[in-house]
């Protein structure tokens, strides 16, 4: 009973916060919240590789950009009604691409895998910038049409909230599934995984496909926020900020990355209004968290919860 409550508490908080914004949020808040849930999906999908399986991909932006460009370009060519269909094609395309890249990169050990994923994403960015007749080059794509129903900021937020929630639910199921246990096992001891009869590479590949698929959905959704996309969605700083946000929030907890994204974006918004040196402040916060609390914000709160629980216990037994 109590155990059930602790597992459900994060979901409750999630629905309370992001659900209530539908009713109370102003235009600016809704805009920020849309970014938080969409990048939150990106970060949680990334964490399937990073926190769970122990694979540091430095190039997940390739799937984010792919999702955004497929959605944006299809809606632009075939009209706003096609926007929602494009959101289904984007993850399918990401799965195909992830198989190709995964087969090439997942057999390599840690740092080589990381460098190769980075190289693939930079390659995609290069193509996107140079092939301007097809992709719009440096300018990206503007005025992406959407179905009328999703036109307003609030409507689009509700739409994104529903899709992100469904995706998070699936990823949450995965985290608690037998397959999720295998991924955690691969992180801790891949040799033992093969000596209990499982193929490490194939499990990694499926994890990579799943992570990339949900990342493309996030990218596709992002194309609808400002109705504009740009090649920077592919670039390495995009992958890098997702890694930072994930570490900031806590990579050993399911909702940790979402918390990291929320804190990061709120800080960027608040401090960015006060000073143009906001990235300096965020850098200082990042260093503090990584040095003092390597388990991230979730780690900090768990630490204090335990302290509090201990003090409570002492009162009972003087």
């Amino acid at each position, binding site marked *: 009973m109590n155990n059930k409550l602790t597992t459900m508490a994060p979901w409750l908080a999630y629905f309370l916060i992001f659900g209530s914004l539908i009713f109370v949020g102003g235009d600016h808040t809704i805009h920020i919240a849309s970014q938080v849930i969409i990048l939150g999906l990106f970060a949680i999908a990334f964490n399937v590789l990073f926190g769970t399986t122990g694979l540091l991909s430095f190039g997940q932006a390739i799937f984010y950009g792919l999702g955004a460009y497929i959605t944006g370009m299809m809606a632009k060519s075939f009209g706003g009604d096609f926007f929602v269909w494009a959101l289904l094609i984007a993850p399918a395309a990401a799965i195909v691409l992830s198989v190709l890249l995964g087969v090439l990169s997942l057999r390599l050990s840690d740092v080589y895998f990381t460098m190769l994923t980075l190289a693939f994403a930079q390659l995609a960015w290069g193509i996107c910038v140079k092939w301007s007749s097809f992709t719009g080059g440096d300018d990206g794509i503007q005025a992406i049409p959407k179905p009328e129903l999703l036109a307003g900021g609030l409507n689009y937020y509700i739409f994104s909230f529903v899709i992100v929630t469904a995706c998070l639910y*699936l990823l949450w*199921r*995965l985290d*608690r*599934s*037998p*397959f*999720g*246990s*295998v991924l*955690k*096992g691969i992180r*801790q*001891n891949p*040799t*033992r995984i*093969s*000596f*209990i*009869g*499982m*193929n490490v590479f194939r*499990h990694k590949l*499926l994890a990579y496909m*799943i992570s990339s698929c949900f990342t493309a959905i996030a990218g596709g959704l992002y194309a609808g926020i400002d109705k504009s996309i740009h090649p920077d969605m592919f670039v390495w700083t995009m992958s890098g900020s997702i890694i930072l946000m994930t570490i900031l929030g806590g990579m050993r907890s399911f909702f940790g990355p979402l918390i990291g994204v929320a804190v990061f974006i709120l800080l960027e918004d608040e401090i960015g209004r006060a000073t143009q040196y906001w990235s300096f402040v965020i850098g200082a916060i990042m260093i503090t968290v990584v040095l003092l609390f390597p388990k991230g914000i979730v780690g900090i709160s768990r630490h204090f919860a335990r302290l509090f629980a201990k003090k409570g216990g002492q009162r009972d037994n003087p």
Partner: protein
Amino acid sequence: MTTLELRQVNKHFGGLHVSKNITMGIEQGELTAIIGPNGAGKTTLFNEITGYITPDNGGIFFNGVEITGAEPESLVKMGIVRAFQVASLFIDETVYDNLCLAALAFHGKNWNIFTNRSVYKNVEEHCRFILERLGLSGKEGLKAFELSHGDQKVLDIAIALTMKPKLLLLDEPTAGMSPDERVKMTHLIRAIHEEFKLTTIFVEHDMDMVFGIADNIRVLVYGELIAEGNAEEIQKNPAVIEAYLGHEVL
């Protein structure tokens, strides 16, 4: 019936000849010890049998089927399972979850993505049985890193047993253990060998244990199999005394 057969197995690491023309047969139900000084190639031999490394030439056969160069995971499915010299665990997980992962793999549930792993009652029963049988009940909630060295080795063997092996290979099961733990481990190995009707091969330095429980002993020196026989034969074998010890202390 011969469970495991090695024919002329050779392996070089650079200039080092670590397996020299090793030929041997292990009968079904046998409890075999492999002894030899450090660097004799005992662990290498285990690695060759379990698919971790491939011999340069020669053949390895399991129940008559050639398995030379097969991947560890397919050998595990055939029933060749090992435990490690340094306990190989999922160190951040609980004792129960360590076994649960092995049991999920054994029951072929590892590809299930969206089901909660606690729904598989047969997996749970399987884990409970192993926990109880190996004396780990009561410790199932501890994280693997919280266990004593001895219990970590027991858990390592428990993971192997969860895979229902036909051929079990134990690499120095008592390494680094206290005398008390050694005695317990010795009894445990003999007991599970008989109870699970296993063919067991173990590498060991503790001669009391080797002579106490092994049906058959093979002696490996500088990659070469120099003798095999029961405890008495091995203790009297002049080649063993000469090459392995240099003088008679056995």
